[in-house]
């Protein structure tokens, strides 16, 4: 929890100023995002979305399921507590994105684009194919930068144990989205708890991993 607070405060300070210019580092691994991409079979999260539209607050909650099927398609399904689907997105083996279903109220181009980017950052899906560049950040952290069609993503990780600490989407030196983890995560895994904070889109997503038990599957 302390780490979470510290990360939030740091990001809050960072958001007030232009995104810092970092010093390049000479690190050999990884060279491609695929090398550290989360391995997903089935992961279920409790999702809580909160935000403001035209100065009115809204809250939305449900279950968010990540699942990779045998045909190597990655599915992201968000449904409410009573089982109704909000949306169902997929990425095929070649990272082609598809909206399989979405409720009319969420069927907005800008919203879909934001959510698509969020999940691609979280799942480390990169269509640019660009190589990774490493940078030095604060004392104990390093940054792995992945170029996007617009801007880049900085994945922060701990220097000594290479645990993933969070991520930041940056465009034109402005922070667009931050992914704040309450605890460090080993590469190839997904965090137990995270806050996806959008600086411009007007909503935040909090995800809490649910244990895989016979009761949830």
């Amino acid at each position, binding site marked *: 929890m302390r780490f979470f607070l510290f990360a939030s405060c740091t990001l809050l300070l960072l958001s007030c100023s232009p995104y810092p210019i970092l010093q390049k580092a000479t690190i050999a691994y990884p060279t491609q995002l695929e090398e550290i991409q989360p391995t997903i079979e089935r992961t279920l999260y409790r999702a809580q979305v909160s935000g403001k539209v035209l100065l009115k607050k809204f809250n939305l909650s449900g279950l968010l399921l990540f699942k990779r099927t045998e045909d190597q398609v990655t599915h992201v399904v968000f449904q409410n507590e009573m089982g109704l689907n909000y949306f169902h997105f997929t990425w095929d083996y070649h990272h082609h994105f598809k909206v399989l279903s979405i409720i009319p109220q969420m069927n907005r181009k800008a919203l879909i684009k934001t959510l698509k980017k969020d999940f691609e950052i979280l799942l480390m899906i990169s269509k640019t194919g660009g190589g990774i560049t490493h940078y030095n950040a604060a004392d104990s952290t390093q940054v792995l930068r992945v170029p996007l069609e617009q801007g880049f993503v900085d994945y922060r990780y701990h220097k000594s144990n290479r645990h993933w600490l969070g991520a930041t989407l940056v465009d034109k030196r402005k922070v667009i989205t931050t992914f704040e983890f309450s605890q460090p995560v080993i590469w190839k895994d997904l965090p137990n708890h995270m806050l996806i904070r959008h600086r411009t889109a007007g909503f935040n997503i909090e995800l809490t991993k649910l244990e895989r038990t*016979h009761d949830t599957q």
Partner: protein
Amino acid sequence: MKFNRWLISACCCCLLLLLATMSYGQKGFTLISNTAQLQADLQKSAAKTQSLKSDFTQIKHMKMLDDKVRSKGTFHFKQTDKVRIEYSHPFSYLVVMNGSQLMIKEGGKISKINTSNSKTMQSVNKIMIDCMRGTVFQNKDFNIKAFYSNSQYLLQLSPVNSAMSGLFTTINIYLSKQDNSVDKLELKEKNGDYTEMIFMNKTHNLSLKDALFSVR
């Protein structure tokens, strides 16, 4: 806000199904061509049920993913228009409906809505009350077919109202023939996914405090 209203409407739809469920309730089932007797029986049973408490298990079946998500909780109903659905696993989530007021509590956050402000909500509310009063067959938002087997009745609800048909293709309510209470509810979606709610440990006419249904 429109989206919040939609969300609440969706929840209400689920609630109404539950209610339909609790106040009364194709394989192996035979069509009942004349439902007059059944309608009368359901009304009689509804009149006898002043309150109801039940445990439930909810299973969402996802066809494309060949996957299921299970949750469980408790259901409370008190005449004439009070409902409380409390999910306890794998998360806490509470929905309370009291007259035209609806409250949702999730992760410490509370959302409230007055259902009389929206036509969709009014429509949902009407159905819920119909279900409680045993007059669901008179509701014009659904085409209703009834079937029977040795131990159950099956009410098959097909939405004719666009707000409902946007959410479900069919709603199946399985009623126990013993007391006309709901054994199981199936909510079918367009993509082949469906959610079933199975009700267990049903207790009728317990003394339930009004505080359980407080929406303040």
